[in-house]
């Protein structure tokens, strides 16, 4: 018995030694080549695929093959911080409903697309940021008397299928009629026609639409936000290191003025002053 036990202990010791040796090897390997995570990918391939919106003036708008807007500028700052040139970013158009699948399936490395951090999404993807804190609001005709979401009973409100604002209307204001389309840009003509009474999404997005030349002076943002929408940068659930790195980049951007410059070159043109990036609110990436 005793001999057997000694042999067993020795065997276990030998095995565990071998295992730790292996583990150590593979550990240092994945550390250097970094097959996992965006930090490793940016390091080894020097390029990134970033998902942005294509139809949100001021935030993410595609004109020809170019993307422009605040989200796009933030994405460029992050890419630069990770060591990727703006020219090596492959932009990919995302809509509200395909952001989680794109991240989970690896279609994109990052999503910077007016992407609200919430608990439900946190179960599927990881969030860095927030880099901006918006609030859900209503866009109405300039002469409308609608003063806030309480006035929506029996009114028709337009939003995007499956988006957070649409779900909030359904759950919090069930007496409002909800018309859903696949993009906000389809809601705008309906508002102009009077077929919907309001368009709802985050105030910053609505401001971008209202400022478009073809709608200048026709609409107004009610200005009573009824939610808090911290905009985050989405990445793979298990990429804690990448998330922490992005938060560091955001901190640096707030300090060196590149965050303010990103705002001033895009949404700043609407006349709204650059917001202060509160770095104490950054996620803990877990």
């Amino acid at each position, binding site marked *: 018995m005793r001999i057997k036990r000694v042999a067993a202990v020795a065997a276990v010791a030998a095995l565990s030694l071998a295992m730790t040796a292996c583990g150590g090897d593979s550990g240092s390997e994945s550390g250097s080549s970094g097959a996992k995570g965006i930090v490793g990918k940016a390091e080894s391939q020097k390029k990134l695929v970033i998902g942005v919106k294509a139809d949100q003036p001021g935030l993410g708008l595609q004109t020809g093959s170019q993307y422009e807007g605040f989200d796009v500028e933030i994405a460029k700052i992050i890419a630069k911080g990770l060591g990727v040139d703006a020219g090596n970013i492959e932009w990919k158009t995302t809509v*509200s*409903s*395909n952001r*989680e*699948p794109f*991240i*989970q*399936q690896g279609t994109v490395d990052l999503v910077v697309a007016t992407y609200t951090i919430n608990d*439900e999404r946190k179960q*599927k993807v990881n969030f860095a940021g927030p880099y901006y804190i918006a609030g859900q609001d209503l866009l109405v005709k300039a002469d409308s008397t609608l003063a806030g979401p309480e006035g929506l009973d029996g009114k*028709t409100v337009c939003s995007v*299928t*499956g988006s957070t604002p649409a779900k909030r209307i359904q759950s919090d204001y069930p007496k409002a*009629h*909800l*018309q*859903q*389309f*696949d993009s906000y840009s389809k809601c705008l*003509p*309906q508002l102009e*026609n009077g*077929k919907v009474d309001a368009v709802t999404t985050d105030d910053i997005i609505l401001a971008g639409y209202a400022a478009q030349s073809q709608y200048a002076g026709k609409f107004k943002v009610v200005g009573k936000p009824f939610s808090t929408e911290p905009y985050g940068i989405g990445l793979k659930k298990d990429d804690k290191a990448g998330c922490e790195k992005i938060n560091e980049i955001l901190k640096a951007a707030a300090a060196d003025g590149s965050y303010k410059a990103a705002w001033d070159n895009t949404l700043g043109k609407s006349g709204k002053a650059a917001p202060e990036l509160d770095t104490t609110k950054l996620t803990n990436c877990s």
Partner: protein
Amino acid sequence: MHVFADPTNFDAFLSGFLWILKLTGASAVFALLLGVLLAAMRVSPVPVLRGFGAAWVNIFRNTPLTLVVFFCYFGLFSTLGLSLAEDLDLNNYWLGVIGLSVYTAAFVCEAIRSGINTVPAGQAEAARAIGLTFAQTLRIVVLPQAARSVVAPLGSILIALCKNATIVGTIGLMESSNVMKDLINSNGDAVIPIFLVFAGTFAAFLIPTGYLFGWLANRLAVKR
């Protein structure tokens, strides 16, 4: 399968398919009536009616259904103000039915016209010879025989219509394809199971439909 274990998701799934069935049912009736009328126009002796029928078929058969349904919302409802129901979903439903009906009627018309061509010319000539008018000839002699030879193609059109009904999702009706998109949105890790369940449900509806029409076609065919 954990996605459908959640009762809210399961209810959404059921209501999505209920919308598809309602769209298919109503559109099938309207498309059949309209299609027969158009076929009658296309074989009628009046040039204006023939032209109208031909124009209808060529316009709607060659326009993508997405555009037709989209026009029903943005053109008929949004711009021209044709409102069909107070309730938003119901309004979109009827707009969808219009789009599906006018589109499908073009195909029904062509199927029936091909059926009319299978009726020997002598039948119509004999009918005229005993003094029946054009309408009577068509109603009593030609169409009944034509209908029996187009059961199988009409079955194919019905199957296509049922699948096409998912297009009404583009104007905001929460039919099956919109529900599927919504479920995938919140369950990105279960895309394939969700897809298979929705595709499988369609197959479960439509494969028996195909067999039923095949069987009917055999039973009703005019043996010549």
